[in-house]
């Protein structure tokens, strides 16, 4: 069963949607920001929350920094449980209200 997740704010939904486009893909911070359409540098608090919940895992890129000429990036990926939880949380976020709505009743002449 999917665990109850965090508050599904719009940036959180956008970040999860970015991951769910290709759940097996690993992404780093700037890529996630670009995919989600969020300003770069603002996704890390969301990623930290998701990682704390166990929805995401992260690892350092396996490269030789001298050869690549840049340091290793930190890559994030949805966990198996995180995929289900994220999908369930997004569905819940889009669930229409069940509260009764008052609608005008047509008057019969």
């Amino acid at each position, binding site marked *: 069963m999917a665990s109850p997740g*965090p508050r599904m*704010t719009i940036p959180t939904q956008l970040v999860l949607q970015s991951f769910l486009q290709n759940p097996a893909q690993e992404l780093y911070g700037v890529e996630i920001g670009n995919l989600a359409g969020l300003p770069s540098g603002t996704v890390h608090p969301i990623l*930290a929350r998701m990682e704390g919940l166990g929805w995401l895992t992260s690892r350092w890129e396996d490269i030789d920094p001298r050869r690549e000429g840049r340091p290793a990036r930190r890559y994030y990926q949805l966990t198996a449980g995180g995929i289900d939880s994220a999908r369930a949380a997004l569905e819940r976020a*889009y669930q*229409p209200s069940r509260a009764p709505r008052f609608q005008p009743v047509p008057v019969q002449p």
Partner: protein
Amino acid sequence: MTTQRPNKWCCRAVELAAWTLPAAQRQRYALEYIAELYGMPPRQQVHHAIQVLASAWRLRDALIQTSSTLPQEDIVTTKTPTRPLLCRVGLHQWHIVSTPDGQRYECCLRCEKDRTEQYGTPMAGGSTSGGSGIPAF
């Protein structure tokens, strides 16, 4: 292939952002932020460094919060099983609140319902495109 080193002031700025984080996480985020600056055009480096600095406190809050999270089963059992009458008929008491990492959203003070759930579709743009905005899984 060699990538040009990022601007040193941008590196200092992201290191400063990492310095505000809990000690156990500082090194990781400093390295992560600097690695992300590589390959960016200079203008984007400045923009990125400012955004990282601006969101540093939210990240700090998120890290502190997640390091002391209660077991999720406990959170579930503390939920109120019934909703107040006014909320059941759709008369919520909306209030702007923040998530642990500082994102703001509207939430009913009585039943804790989110405003995004009420209206179904997100209001902002981004990767959503028409319809419900949920990608087809």
